[in-house]
């Protein structure tokens, strides 16, 4: 059994007033006792992708420069490391699907390391599922190195029961003309921490993120995403859309960091939040840090309930307010679900969300 106590996660790159309690979050206690059983369609990529299981940390030195959104507080946890290397010029025509099974209320930690070599392209779906399991701990980290002209698209969906404590963490470095994208469906669990940090180091590299979240009951959802532009003409587009219901609390931190020398860089960030309950606490803090003249940065946020005119219109069609809210909530999540490159997984997520919302 491994334990972490009072760890700091999801720190803002630049602090603000302490009274807001947004600078970082604390996780009082987590326990992890093993790694989750993982399955993946390795056989579909024979000769194109190399898979290495239980990789020793000493062979992952290249990833030491990969920063993550949650931060380095999870590094002390031992977990199964899977190293996945996509060879040069490989353009995969089907997604790599990685499934973690959490059974019998287990407390698990796993790590994935991706190296996308030059001119390669791959979609990866990472799915977390639970059977006979209502509560537990899920710690997961994905670190990626995306080399010149490569394209790595990661799709994650958390379908664990709502009694879980979840810490899912990402980090990536992008070389010239590389693209890293992160599409995530985040369903709240008892306490949910998500982080993503992408360093756009190469010229013309890009980071695209599309996040949908839903939290209800007394769930806590805590997120921190950072795009750090150091390369010239780099681009990021970060979008988050979410729904909060019941007594759910959520914080979304999003940072676009233009470092000196990233001339020609562009960054956009947007969050839309739908609040369905008066007991929700919604915190949003979108940062732009700018140390370079020749850049364009924009961020926007809209927070509120469904427009009364929409409710009135749907009411005139015989749809109750509660049903209208469910429809709107599902539509927001579905818009991101539909981006998953697998009909089967899309259906699985949609069915799961039907049960949750």
């Amino acid at each position, binding site marked *: 059994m491994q334990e972490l106590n009072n760890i700091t996660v999801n720190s803002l790159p*630049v602090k603000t007033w302490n009274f807001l309690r947004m600078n970082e979050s604390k996780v009082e206690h987590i326990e992890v006792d093993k790694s989750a059983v993982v399955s993946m369609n390795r056989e579909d990529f024979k000769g194109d992708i190399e898979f290495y299981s239980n990789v020793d940390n000493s062979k992952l030195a290249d990833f030491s420069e990969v920063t993550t959104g949650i931060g380095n507080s999870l590094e002390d946890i031992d977990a199964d490391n899977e190293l996945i290397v996509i060879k040069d010029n490989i353009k995969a025509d089907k997604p790599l699907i990685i499934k973690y099974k959490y059974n019998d209320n287990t407390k698990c930690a796993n790590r994935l390391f991706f190296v996308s070599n030059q001119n390669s392209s791959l979609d990866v779906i990472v799915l977390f599922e639970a059977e006979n399991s209502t509560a537990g701990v899920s710690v997961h980290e994905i670190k990626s190195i995306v080399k010149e002209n490569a394209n790595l698209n990661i799709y994650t969906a958390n379908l664990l029961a709502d009694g879980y404590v979840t810490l899912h963490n990402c980090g990536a470095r992008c070389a010239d003309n590389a693209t890293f994208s992160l599409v995530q469906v985040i369903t709240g669990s008892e306490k949910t921490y998500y982080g993503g940090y992408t360093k756009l180091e190469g010229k013309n590299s890009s980071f695209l993120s599309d996040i949908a979240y839903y939290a209800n009951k007394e769930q806590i959802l805590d997120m921190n995403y950072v795009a750090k532009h150091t390369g010239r003409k780099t681009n990021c587009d970060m979008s988050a859309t979410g729904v909060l219901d019941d007594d759910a609390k959520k914080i979304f931190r999003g940072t676009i960091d233009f470092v000196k020398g990233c001339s020609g860089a562009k960054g956009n960030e947007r969050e839309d939040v739908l609040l369905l309950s008066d007991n929700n606490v919604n*915190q949003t803090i979108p940062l*732009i840090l700018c140390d370079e003249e020749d850049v364009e940065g*924009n961020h926007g*946020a809209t*927070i*509120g*309930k469904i427009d009364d005119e929409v409710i009135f219109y749907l009411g005139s069609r015989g749809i109750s307010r509660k049903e209208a809210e469910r429809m709107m909530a599902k539509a927001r999540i579905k818009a991101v679900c539909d981006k998953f490159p697998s009909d089967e997984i899309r259906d699985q997520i949609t069915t799961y969300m039907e049960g949750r919302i």
Partner: protein
Amino acid sequence: MSEKTYVEDIDRSMYDFRNEDKDAYRISAGLTADIVEQISNEKDDPEWMREFRLKSLEVYNRLQVPEWGPDISELNIDNIATYVTKKSGMKESWEDVPDEIKDTFDKLGIPQAERTSLAGVGAQYDSEMVYHNVQKEVEELGVVYTDIESALKGEYADMIKEHFMHLVPPTDHKFAALHGAVWSGGSFVYVPKGVKLEIPLQSYFRLNAAGAGQFEHTLIILEEDSYLHFIEGCSAPKYNVANLHAGCVELYVGKNAKLRYSTIENWSKNMYNLNTKRAIVEEGGTVEWVSGSFGSHVSYLYPMSILKGKGSKMEFTGVTFAGKGQNLDTGAKVVHAAPDTSSYINTKSISKSGGCSTFRSSVVINKNAKHSKASVSCESLMLDDISRSDTIPAMDIRTADADVGHEAKIGRISDDAVFYLMSRGISEENAKAMIVSGFADNVSKELPLEYAMEMNNLIKLEMSGSIG
């Protein structure tokens, strides 16, 4: 070879004259209970104020400097004289003000402004008010505009005691505690029920002494259905040692009353401006902040509005210009604590010559603030590649029945806008000058004409050449 657009630093020469410190009473530098007692004795404080100062000192010693925001490690309170005065006393006529001080305010145009466009003027020189006057007609309406220390001992003593540092308690942060311990000077304004003052009042604060602090307290109380436009100006000559400004502004806006509070801040570039401003607004009331931040070496300035009454409103319009050697951390805070409240924050920041500007805001909508609306818009303009501009807006929303919008932009002068203007026959140079000047328009159009002109003079943006 094309020449890169060059924007001049603000011309500060009109503010950068200084007087000798001779004849001035200057308390020892540093901050101890003895020094606080000495200030209290100098002012002949009532006993409650003496105790308040000493308790504030305890709070100051207990609190840490902020761990967020610009670096203030070079500010050493042991080197700051917290009280400096010429001991000339406060006058009601410019003729009676000592020549040297009168000359200072003449150069700043304050007496002339009083004659032409103000209903009353207060002037503070270092730690003490030296002049306070209000038009007779305004006085007859029951408006009180006086220095706060006279008010502390006169017929408004109870009112001062009831309101002084209740909105900004010394426990708020370290520099609020410092203010509570060593405050000196400042203005008190009381506008009775139903009185609408069409002409503004102005207080001007001048810090002449080197290595000194200014800690004036401004307390304004607007009763029901009243209106006031209050203008605050401040400047100082530049020294090679650090100066400190830790003023405090407390504004009480009554039911259906409206207060506009305008500030043109032009401290010298050796100044640490750690000022605290706060307003509480009752039902149907409105507070409007208009803020231009041009001076200081380091600024922490975020006027806060507490929308306490149903239907109360807040509007904040600000511009910040950070030039060489400046790190200006400015913005606004608002708490929606009642239904049907609304807030609108609109700011512009300009960074050049290695200056750093940060926009920082917080919008908090409490659970009971149903049907509230909040909008935040901030734009930043980078004028060269050695400057910095950060945007740190926070929103904390605790009711579903609120409508909150936020947008921010950062960038340089738009090539498209320049191209459009050039296609209308305007030269490239003029097009760029127009764009930069227009960027700060949100503040200048909110000021009375005379002050808008002052602000434009202050900016003095001079353009030459074209972007290379």
